[in-house]
């Protein structure tokens, strides 16, 4: 098991956002965290990589408690793709090279350059490597951000809504790419998402948060209409299509 979240609670200014959250993720597993806006999905990701300090509980990554590690040591184990990417005047190659920072002592080594080139090839970004990222589209920029997290050579990948603002083709590309990265390299990945059908199609496990607590955890085929109704307050039907569950809101009337 790579990630173990042990009874994590967190509050902003006395208002409790997360309450006793506990779950674990194994190598090769992609977990998706679902729930309404403001339920604490992003807060949970930030607690996992110690950008925020949980009030109670502990997070273990690859056998280490994260609060006992320095930020640099965490960055060697956990890659984080934030929801917002701002783009400076850097080439895509340099932007991805930045992911080597936790490993770089003083100078960039040839090995670092080779790893970045390898990541660019595996993301199929060769044609974009020397372009400035401030001239890129949202989908391209998102791939660069994922590349940056991948060259950190992490055990655990955290992604905060990696497909928001992307068109259908780009959503599929990003999720397929994540799927492969997770399986091929034995990573554990946790992502947040709003699109239920995409989430259920690509994730190995889902986790529903409601009012800061875990409401339901399971495999995509185990999802029930009652759960979705209870979490979002929307009546839905669940259909099967080629083995994938499809969540469809019921008609009003």
């Amino acid at each position, binding site marked *: 098991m790579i990630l173990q979240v042990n009874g994590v609670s967190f509050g902003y200014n006395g208002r409790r956002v997360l309450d006793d959250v506990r779950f674990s993720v194994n190598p090769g597993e992609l977990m998706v965290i679902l729930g309404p806006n403001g339920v604490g999905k992003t807060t949970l990701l930030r607690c996992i990589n110690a950008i925020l300090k949980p009030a109670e509980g502990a997070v273990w990554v690859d056998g280490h408690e994260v609060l006992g590690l320095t930020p640099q040591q965490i960055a060697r184990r956990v890659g984080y793709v*934030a929801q917002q990417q*701002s783009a400076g005047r850097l080439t895509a190659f340099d932007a991805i090279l*930045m992911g080597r920072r936790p490993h770089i002592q003083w100078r960039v080594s040839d090995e670092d350059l080779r790893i970045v080139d390898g990541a660019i090839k595996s993301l199929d970004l060769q044609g974009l490597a020397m372009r400035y990222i401030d001239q890129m589209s949202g989908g391209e920029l998102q791939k660069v951000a994922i590349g940056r997290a991948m060259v950190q050579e992490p055990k655990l990948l955290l992604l905060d809504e990696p497909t928001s603002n992307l068109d259908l083709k780009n959503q599929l590309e990003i999720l397929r790419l994540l799927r492969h990265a997770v399986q091929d390299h034995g990573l554990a990945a946790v992502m947040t998402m709003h699109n239920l059908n995409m989430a259920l199609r690509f994730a190995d496990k889902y986790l529903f948060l409601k009012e800061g607590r875990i409401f339901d955890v399971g495999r995509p085929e185990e999802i029930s209409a009652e759960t979705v109704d209870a979490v979002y307050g929307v009546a839905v039907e669940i259909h099967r299509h080629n083995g994938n569950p499809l969540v469809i809101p019921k008609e009003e009337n």
Partner: protein
Amino acid sequence: MHFAQGEIPRQYTRYIGRKSAFIGASFLFLAGAILVSISQGAAGIPLEGVVRSLLGAGAERRYDVIIWNIRLPQALSAVAAGAGLAVSGAVMQSILRNPLGSPFTLGISQAAAFGAALAVMILDAGVMASTQVGAVTISEPILTTATAFVFCLAAAAVIIAVSRLRGASPETMILTGVALGALFTAGTMFLQFFADDVQLAAMVFWTFGDVGRANWFELALFSGVTALATVYFFANGWNYNAIDAGDETAQGLGVRVERIRLLGMLVASLVTAVIVAFLGIIGFVGLVCPHMVRRLIGGDHRFLLPATVIVGGLLLLISDTVARLILAPHLLPVSILTAFMGAPAFLYLLIRGYRR
């Protein structure tokens, strides 16, 4: 995870090579510009004489006197001040995530002007030697400089204190700086209103940034501070790149964003405070130069910062040389020229398509 199939792309090494070549070429250009600048002035000195004097290889005695007492310290002051102001500006623009970032955005120059005015008024440090233009002297330069410096640091301290309370976000720092700038400007106007003619002249005179003001000792002092700060900035090049990608991404890469932001602001303010205290207020180099260099070689701080140091020194040296010659025999303070050139240059960059 590991990527085994990678190799070092030729295209990338060539790209890096071009940037290094740019830095090398501008360094050579700077060295040449120093020689030319020293040769120019009321008494023209042939380049050969300049080189002989600098190498101590038997130049004419009067050349030695002019070069070692006047021209060389002035040229080196221009280079050191330009380098320090420009690199501080580049770092500020990154850590404040704002294209208008420069130590002046944070109210540092207004604080210095207030400190100098206070020294002239209350501590009686300014005297007018005659009624001729340019004959105003600050009778207690050390006292004035020290007071200006203290107020620069006070401004920086207030910004850090507010950042500690509210979190070191770019907005907090910039808005605090704007408030401080307004406060110190009001303080200076208050002093000027009650000043007599002599004091008023001395206050205004002090604010004209002039690189001819520093002696060898002062030059050594602010060059040393600039050099140390530059080493610190270079060592943090990766951190500034990461902060450019967003605070959260930087934190995910193991960067202690708030600490880097506070320290960067402190060091940049210190450099500016030392330079402004000795030379007066020289605007626009810190603002325009980083934008120019960014347009030429991109925003990667590993290369941007060294290039900004050199180009900043070069820009102020050229400006100062032109300022000395343009209205000869009058010597124009360089700050007037930089402001005149800086504003159109900035507008040009803006219209040509500005990028951070």
